[in-house]
C-alpha cells in the first residue's frame, strides 16, 4: 500500500512538473491604456481616439492554475457559442454572424491532426493584432431609418447586427472594412460624440498560443501515462491532473477564440442619445445661468393646453 502511495506521489510530482514546464506563465490581464490623442471639432462634437495594449506580466508564477483573465464571462459566453455579450452592451445576438476565423479554427479542432491547429493558423500573427471598436452618439432623429441604414451598411460590408434596441444598434464588420464603415456612420445622422479605440492584443495573443501548445504537450504526456497499466489510485491521480490540464486548455482556447473573433470583426456601437457629460469633458454641474435655455425644445413649443 505504501509503495502504491509512493508511486502515486511520484506520478503527481511528475505530472505537476510536466505541467509546470509547459505552462509556467504568469497571469495575463487586460488593461486599457490612456488615450493618446483627442480632438474637438469646430461644431462642438467631441472626438476621442484611444490606443491601448494588453500586458503580460512576468511574475514568474510557475505551475498551478495561473491563468487569470478579467473577462472570463465574455470568454465563457463566446467559447460556448451562446449569445454573446460585448464589452459595452449585454443582450442577445440578433443575427447569425458570418463565420469568422475563430469559428473556422473551432471546426478545424474537431478534426485535428498532429500538430494541432491553433487560432494563430487562422490569424496572421506576423502583423499587428488590433481590436477595433467605435462608439458613436448620434442625435435622436429618425432613429428607425438610421438604424436600418446602419444595419444594411453592415451587411453590405460583410458584417452583421450584433444587438439592436430602440435607442442603439451594435454591429460587427470585418476589421478590414472598419475605417470605411466608420465613415458610413458619420453620414447616418448628426454625430454628437465619437470614440474610436484600437487595442493591441498581439502580445497576449501570441502568449496564449504558446500556452495552448504547451498545455497540449502536457496533456498528451499525461494521457500517455494512463496507457501504462497503472494502479487504480495512480489512475485517479493522473486523471485528476489530466482533467485540470484539459480545463486550462479549454480556457486558453476560449480566450484565443475570443481574441481571434474580436480581431477579425470590429465592433461599432451607435447610440441614439446624448453622450454623458463626463465624456464631453464638461463638469457635471456646468450650466449657463440663463434658465430660458432650458425651456427650449419641442415639448414647450407644442404644448398648447
Amino acid at each position, binding site marked *: 500500500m505504501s509503495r502504491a502511495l509512493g508511486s502515486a506521489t511520484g506520478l503527481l510530482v511528475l505530472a505537476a512538473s510536466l505541467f509546470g514546464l509547459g505552462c509556467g506563465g504568469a497571469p495575463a490581464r487586460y488593461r486599457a491604456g490612456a488615450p493618446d490623442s483627442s480632438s474637438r471639432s469646430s*461644431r*462642438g*462634437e467631441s472626438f476621442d481616439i484611444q490606443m491601448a495594449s494588453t500586458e503580460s506580466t512576468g511574475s514568474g508564477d510557475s505551475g498551478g492554475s495561473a491563468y487569470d483573465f478579467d473577462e472570463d464571462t465574455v470568454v465563457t459566453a463566446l467559447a460556448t457559442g451562446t449569445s454573446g455579450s460585448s464589452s459595452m452592451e449585454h443582450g442577445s445576438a440578433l443575427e447569425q454572424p458570418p463565420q469568422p476565423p475563430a469559428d473556422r479554427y473551432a471546426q478545424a479542432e474537431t478534426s485535428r491532426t498532429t500538430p494541432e491547429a491553433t487560432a494563430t493558423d487562422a490569424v496572421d500573427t506576423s502583423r499587428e493584432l488590433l481590436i477595433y471598436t467605435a462608439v458613436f452618439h*448620434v*442625435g*435622436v*432623429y*429618425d*432613429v*428607425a431609418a438610421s438604424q436600418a441604414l446602419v444595419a444594411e451598411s453592415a451587411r453590405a460590408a460583410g458584417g452583421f447586427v450584433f444587438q439592436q434596441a*430602440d435607442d442603439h444598434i451594435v454591429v460587427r464588420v470585418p476589421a478590414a472594412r472598419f475605417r470605411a464603415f466608420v465613415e458610413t456612420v458619420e453620414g447616418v*445622422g*448628426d454625430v*454628437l460624440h465619437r470614440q474610436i479605440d484600437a487595442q493591441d492584443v498581439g502580445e497576449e495573443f501570441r502568449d496564449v498560443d504558446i500556452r495552448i501548445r504547451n498545455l497540449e504537450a502536457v496533456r498528451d504526456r499525461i494521457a500517455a501515462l494512463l496507457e501504462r497499466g497503472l494502479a487504480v489510485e495512480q489512475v485517479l491521480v493522473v486523471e485528476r491532473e489530466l482533467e485540470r490540464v484539459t480545463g486550462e486548455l479549454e480556457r486558453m482556447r476560449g480566450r484565443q477564440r475570443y481574441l481571434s473573433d474580436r480581431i477579425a470583426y470590429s465592433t461599432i456601437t451607435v447610440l*441614439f*442619445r*446624448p*453622450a454623458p457629460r463626463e465624456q*464631453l469633458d*464638461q463638469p457635471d454641474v456646468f450650466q*449657463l445661468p*440663463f434658465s*430660458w*435655455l*432650458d*425651456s*427650449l*425644445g*419641442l*415639448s*414647450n*413649443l*407644442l*404644448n*398648447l393646453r
Partner: protein
Amino acid sequence: MRHSLTALALLFASGCGSHFAVVSPDDFLELAHEDSRRYGYELRATSADGVVVGVREIENPQHGSRDFWVDAIRNRLRRDAGYALIDESDVSAASGQTGHQLRFGHDESSRPYIYWITVFVTPDRVFVVEAGGRRDPFAAAQARVESAISTFRIR
C-alpha cells in the same frame, strides 16, 4: 388672420413691452397671450395639424453676441437634449438684422419631428423664433413658415 396677428404683435410692441412684429403663417391660429406666456413665449400660433410657431423675447443685459447665443442654444439642444442638427444658415430679418437659423430634427415617441430656431440679437435683446411639428405636416407648412419668419421685424 394674418392682419390680426400683426396687429397683436404691434399691440405688444406698444402696450406690453414687445419689441418685434411678425406676420403669422397663413392658416395659423394665434393662441391666447396668457397661454403663450405660461411657456415663455410672447406669442404663439398653430396650424390645425399641430405645426406651431412661437416667439420669445429675452433681455440681454450682458450684451451677449449673436454667436454666443447661437452656440449656447446649439449646445443646449444637441449635447444636452440629443437634438440632431440638420442644417444651419444665416437669415435676414425684414428690419435688416442678420439672424441665424438652426434646423433640428428630434424623435418624440419614436416619431420624427422638425424644430427650427431662428435667433436675432440686438445689444439689449435676444429674439428667438421657434417653429416645430411632426415632420410631414411641417414639410407641408414649411414654405409658409419660412415666409412668416422673413417678415420678422425688430422695432
